[in-house]
């Protein structure tokens, strides 16, 4: 009986295998007729222009068929919907290129999928990058240089893009990306609390004033601190951004264009000491860990001031039960604000004609009309002079004074430091901020250690 069952099973499996072998045949068989039929109808079209180097002759007449490209986008919610809408408008606006938008999650998720796609050699044609991630992919040959396209038949006036925003599309002297959803850090403050403690109804101008304001905002109940001036951003994707602004303000350039790390220079150490003293000497700040990070502390009124992305503007105003004020990031020796957000790049693995189509698409995505639409829908920054000066934008800014301040701050933006492009850099910066704000490690030592770690990481993975 056992043997009988066994034999039957074997037979079943073998039959299955036979069926499996047989299956391809029917599918193989039909195509010939289909393949012969299709050309038969389109033979005139296909034979007349024989020289037009058709790469895929079986897929219908080439001359009129649009080039299909795939765009991988990040960002969900309003910025996601706005991208879909702009892509739809692009497809409707012309017949040569049809783009398919594919949502891939957050910036890090998209980047991981791109890594896997590159390893599997099935890449999309256009991708969105968190701007500091772009150079590493460019350096490793994954991206197509865009200079020729920018000058070619579909040329674009690069001078129209805001210089600080276009700058981080370059790597090694070549253009690899155009700015798209850009954001900058701005200072948010709790106007109600400012009034309560007798502060003026404006943001502090300098870091020193920021400290003075913070001290006034501190509230204690016994030994417990109930409120501080500022909760420091500690997140893996945010700590480095705000800390760079402090270093820039203190006159430290973080790193030069040859990736030499400069943070352990005196201005850098002074900036680090300032941040540490705010917590441990003045008790005017806390590390912003915990749920929702520093922003949670601000919206729960446990801190009176907050640095946040311009992209969070709508969110912060709507989740706060108080009047929110907005101002420039504080200055010290100078005012310089590191730009954030994303850029659009084209993959080098795509064939030339798809690259050209991809260029058309990113040109459209970043043109004045699309940008004005995107800005109005999302609160990201305008990226070109023509967008800033357009009547629609002016009207929009008049209605949104908080957003106007963010746009005015654009004159102070500069790209993030070169060293941020090294993959380990953001994690090293996060640990540096932790050492300063949690570990109470001597600023000179912490900056020196971080500098060594950044240089080592650069030599290992980027050089």
């Amino acid at each position, binding site marked *: 009986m056992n*043997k*009988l069952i*066994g*034999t*039957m*099973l*074997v*037979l*079943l*499996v073998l039959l299955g295998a036979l069926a499996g072998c047989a299956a391809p045949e029917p599918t193989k068989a039909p195509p010939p007729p289909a393949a012969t039929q299709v050309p038969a109808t389109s033979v005139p079209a296909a034979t007349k222009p024989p020289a037009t180097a058709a790469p895929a002759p079986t897929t219908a007449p080439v001359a009129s068929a649009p080039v299909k490209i795939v765009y991988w986008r990040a960002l969900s919610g309003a910025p996601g919907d706005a991208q879909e809408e702009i892509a739809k408008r692009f497809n409707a606006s012309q017949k040569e290129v049809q783009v398919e938008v594919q949502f891939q999650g957050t910036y*890090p998720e998209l*980047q*991981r999928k791109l*890594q*896997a796609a*590159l*390893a599997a*050699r099935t890449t999309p044609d256009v991708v969105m990058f968190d701007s500091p991630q772009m150079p*590493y*992919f460019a350096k*490793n*040959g*994954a991206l197509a240089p865009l200079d020729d396209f920018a000058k070619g038949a579909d040329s674009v006036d690069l001078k129209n893009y805001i210089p600080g925003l276009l700058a981080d599309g370059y790597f090694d002297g070549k253009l690899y990306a155009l700015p798209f959803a850009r954001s900058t850090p701005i200072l948010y403050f709790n106007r109600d609390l400012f009034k309560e403690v007798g502060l003026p109804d404006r943001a502090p101008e300098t870091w020193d004033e920021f400290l003075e304001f913070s001290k006034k905002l501190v509230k204690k109940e016994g030994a*417990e601190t*109930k409120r501080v001036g500022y909760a420091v951003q*500690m*997140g*893996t994707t945010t700590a480095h951004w705000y800390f760079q602004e402090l270093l820039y303000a203190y006159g430290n350039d973080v790193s030069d264009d040859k990736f030499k790390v400069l943070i352990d220079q005196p201005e850098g150490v002074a900036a680090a000491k300032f941040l540490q003293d705010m917590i441990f000497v003045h008790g005017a700040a806390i*590390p912003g*860990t*915990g*749920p929702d990070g520093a922003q949670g502390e601000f919206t*729960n009124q*446990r801190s009176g001031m907050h640095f946040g992305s311009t992209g969070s503007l709508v969110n912060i105003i709507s989740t706060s039960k108080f009047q929110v004020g907005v101002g420039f990031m504080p200055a010290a020796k100078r005012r310089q604000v590191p730009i954030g957000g994303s850029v659009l790049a084209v993959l080098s693995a795509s064939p030339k004609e798809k690259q050209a189509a991809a260029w058309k698409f990113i040109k459209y995505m970043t043109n004045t009309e699309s940008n004005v639409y995107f800005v109005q829908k999302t609160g990201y920054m305008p990226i070109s002079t023509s967008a800033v000066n357009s009547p629609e934008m002016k009207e929009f800014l008049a209605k949104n004074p908080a957003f106007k301040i963010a746009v005015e701050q654009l004159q102070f933006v500069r790209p993030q430091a070169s060293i941020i492009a090294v*993959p*380990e850099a*953001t*994690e090293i910066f*996060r*640990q540096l901020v*932790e*050492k300063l704000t*949690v*570990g109470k490690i001597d600023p000179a030592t912490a900056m020196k250690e971080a500098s060594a770690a950044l240089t080592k*990481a650069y030599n*290992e*993975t980027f050089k």
Partner: protein
Amino acid sequence: MNASQASAAIFGFPRLTHYQRERLTFLALIAPNFILFGVFTFWPLIYNFYLSFNKWNMITPTPTWIGLDNYATMIQDPIFWKVLGNTLYLASGSIAIRLVLALALALVLNQKLAGRDVYRAIIFSPTFTTGAAVALVWTWILHKNLGLLRLPLDLLGIASPNWLTDVNWTIPALIIVTIWRGLGYDMVIFLAGLQSIPAELYEAARVDGAGRWSLFRHITLPMLSPISFFLIVTSIIGALQVFDIVAVMTGGGPMNSSKVYVYYVYENAFKFFKVGYAAALSMALFVITLGITIFQTRLSRRWVHY
């Protein structure tokens, strides 16, 4: 016999010996699982082993062979030792407490209590809740000032530690969450074990005058030993692979105090683009896990009764 011969004859198969037929049956039966395991487990393992001798970022087309460099780097990498220590701390800190609590709960909920199914369901519920959701809720519970956990601590007059900010408290915080999350599963397994102990054993022992403690000590515990062994092995493996709650709650911070092994592997592969190094780290974890499991199995001969 006849039928099979007949069918073989009909389909034109050559006559197979008994041994050949058995072999074919065996192959046919294991094939579906074996292929799946092969594609999704063995091949990645082999390829991972190969990658561990390479330097690669997954962006350039091909890996570069660098021999044992990744393993040499690993031994000299202070963060490797740190995360290994963190992971073992988390594993040892959570497993014993978890199993003892789970056994106690299982014993209680094995009694005929009113509403015990409800309790069982409640205690089991963390098991089927997503790790990320659990982690997010716990970041609130553990908040120094706003957290729920502050209430009992205040009652006891203890100042709540800065669970997720203080380098000394991050692993204890993770231990609490891991225990809470794993308790229900362990309890259900223990319950199944308890219910499979034959009632005659207890009856016989009672006839011989055994008290409650003796019953537990000499019947329940030994009869549960295979289950306990299973749970110890699987929870150690699970604890060595903790990832999601760390990713959501702390991101390994502050200052690497809560960085666990698998999170470090992930960071190296997908944030630092050191795929080869991540592969080497994975191989090391594989060997460590295998070593611990073999050691456990050896040890189990002394205390597990089947």
